[in-house]
């Protein structure tokens, strides 16, 4: 396998890491108004992701950074072509990050309510936006010979990319509920589990439809296999949730997103951003890759860096492995 193809796989892996990890912390934020009955329960929910959400978000930064380093042409075309959706994602992420940090810093109902709204909006918008952008890169845009978008600012917003937006948001919703079932105790846990059981058959429909569309347009035999794995894992997750096996359900959802991402990007390869205007304008792995030397340099960095990241992020989850319940939440203390 060429270094270029390896880096294509690594970038897919970074995006997968991002969707898997931040997927559940988005889900927790999305469910804040649905599952919590009072402020203490809201705090329980937020604290399940408190120590880890920031580390999860770095997967996005690294996915983008790695695209810039390994496939500058892909990064340059995709990010400018999806300008406004990306801007909305950025605004939402800014608000969300600040909201987590600031919501408890003033002891006032109104203050917390307002920041909670920011958390909810900031947790719904990015998975929708990221879903739309990743689907765009898979399904393509009208690109000219420069690799620049032809047409208006909303060219990336179409029925098929919107399906991608719903797919990622739907996955995050279920994944977040499963994570809450795994990380909380008592009443809240039961509510999260029941929600996940009920929501899963509906929320994952867009994902399956998207996979079907992509498979039909560009799929190969082996992507059909990964598509089947994705659907089977979703069914397993559903049954495990119903059977009260939180951990196994959460893991099965992980398999669902992994198989989905593999299907999508497997169908995309060897393109990275197809042109719907003229196949000659499509951006490809080979056409946008950095020089072999640059790829070699970042391969060394990745070879040492990425395993270390997995080890210490894994350790973080181990340190904070205990379930959280309302009794553990300390009283509010602000100056």
């Amino acid at each position, binding site marked *: 396998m060429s270094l270029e193809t390896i880096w294509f796989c690594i970038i897919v892996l970074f995006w997968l890491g991002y969707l898997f990890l931040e997927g559940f912390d988005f889900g927790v934020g999305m469910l804040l108004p649905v599952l919590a009955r009072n402020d203490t329960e809201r705090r329980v929910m937020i604290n399940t992701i408190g*120590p880890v959400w920031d580390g999860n978000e770095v997967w996005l930064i690294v996915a983008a950074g790695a695209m810039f380093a390994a496939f*500058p042409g892909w990064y340059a075309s995709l990010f400018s072509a999806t300008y406004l959706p990306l*801007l909305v994602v950025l605004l939402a992420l*800014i608000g969300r990050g600040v909201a987590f*940090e600031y919501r*408890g810093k003033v002891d006032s109902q109104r203050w917390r309510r307002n920041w909670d709204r920011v958390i909810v909006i900031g947790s719904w918008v990015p998975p929708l936006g990221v879903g739309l952008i990743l689907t765009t890169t898979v399904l393509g845009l009208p690109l000219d010979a420069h690799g620049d978008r032809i047409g208006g*600012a909303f060219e990336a917003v179409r029925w098929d990319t919107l399906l991608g937006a719903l797919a990622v948001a739907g996955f995050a919703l279920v994944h977040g509920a499963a994570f809450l079932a795994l990380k909380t105790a008592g009443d809240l846990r039961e509510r999260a589990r029941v929600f996940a059981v009920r929501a899963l058959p509906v929320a994952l429909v867009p994902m399956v439809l998207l996979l079907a569309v992509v498979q039909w347009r560009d799929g190969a035999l082996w992507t059909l296999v990964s598509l089947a794995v994705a659907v089977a894992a979703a069914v397993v997750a559903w049954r495990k949730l119903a059977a009260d096996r939180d951990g196994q359900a959460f893991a099965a959802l992980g398999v669902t997103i992994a198989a989905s991402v593999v299907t999508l990007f497997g169908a995309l390869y060897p393109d990275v951003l197809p042109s719907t205007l003229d196949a000659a304008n499509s951006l490809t792995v080979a056409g946008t890759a950095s020089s072999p030397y640059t790829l070699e340099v970042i391969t060394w960095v990745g070879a040492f860096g990425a395993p270390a990241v997995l080890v210490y992020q894994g350790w*973080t989850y181990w340190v*904070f492995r205990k379930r959280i319940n309302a009794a553990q*939440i300390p009283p509010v203390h602000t100056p």
Partner: protein
Amino acid sequence: MDVLQLARWQFGITTVYHFLMVPLTIGLSVLVAGMQTAWVRTGDQRYYKMTKFWGKLLLVNFAMGVVTGIVQEFQFGMNWNAYSRFVGDVFGAPLAMEGLVAFFVESTFLGLWIFGWDRLPKKVHLACAWAFSLATIASAYFILAANSWMQHPVGVTFTDGKPRLNSIWAVLTNNTALAAIPHTIAGAFSVAAAFLVGIGGWHLWRKRRSDDEHRAVWRSSIRLGGWTGIVAFAVLAITGDFQGKLMFEQQPMKMASAEALCHTEQPASFSIIAIGDVTSQNCEDVKTFNVPALLSFLAHSDFTTEVKGVEDLVTEYQAEYGTNYPDDPQLGELAGKPVDYVPSLPVTYWGFRIMIGFGAISAGTGLLALWLTRKDRIPDTRWFPRLALLGIATPFIGNSAGWIFTEMGRQPFVVVPNPSGVDGVWMFTAQAVSRISTGEVWTSLIALSSLYAVLGVVEVFLMRKYVRGGIDGVIPPEQTDEEGKDALAFAY
């Protein structure tokens, strides 16, 4: 305004804003890790309280630094996609390294530090503080290496119309980077130092009548701030001088503009202040008050060498890089128009002076703080706490002016040609911008600036609240009941 101007404004605004948060995070995180080390080693409660108090302010600030950093990374692809395509082979590598090696560590270990107070053994928890704070410095290193490559491209060949990386080592040890990194880190420490002195001084003064139990906390904070500020300034001066000398070699136009030095002089005099019209782009209109031969000394370490002036440099640049922009439709209205090689004179001239002036004022405040705390005189000097509070702003202003000077001084280039480097490895800013609609850039410029403005107000409000709350505001009352035993020591 066209896309180019809008994108430049956006880059300027978001960068300067981001760099209000980042230096405080860098400086304060290292100092807080030091405070916690002192507590773990001595068991002295004073250091525990210092860690908690300054740590809380660090967190209020950190959130803003992170979220504004994401915008910085994405903006290269959104607004500057032609730049990204041109330099991606080189520029992306340090960015990816920053993420993989530094930023993951920073974010993960900060989470462990915040929430780990009751979950981790004392020493492991302390190690998390150090991992976090050292990673902020590593982050700065990679970003500055990337920026320095734009200022002085090295380690590349020019193949198929693009720079191709041939030595990552050369990029990471670029002399421009090695000068910029200690200079910028020292600037970060001077921000944290002024913060400690200003807030500590105010607390000491406010509690002067009562026999405050936290007096020792504030006194130690001021002394730590004072020393940090002085050492930081010494590093700033030495590295600044070194950077200046490099810049005379690498970007002579930037330095000539900083001095409004119109004609080549031998020996060249250093301008202390301008009395004429610096706002004019014609350097002939600028009349400055000069110290003879000093500029020759700053540039080349002797009092007699020639320093090139703006006008002669323009002729040289025109011969080297052309008198007109290429006739490329990508350049829009600028295609085929003459290139203006002189950066904005008022910005470079005053940016340079404000940077040095405010840096010096900041160090002066630190020195004063050390002198006054020596005999415990701070509570009685009414004027000092006020001065020190105002002094918090000075290194922020100095840093911002420094960045504006550095980035505006390299115009009209985004990648400045390296005089001893490979031919062709340079790029005009006008060629770097994305071909997108002005509506898109307007939208993001307005949306981001307004959001930044609102969040800036919120951060200042929270900072004020926690500063006023003092030690009692950050350490919750002891929980004695049995139920509290399993409680989290920290929760959002």
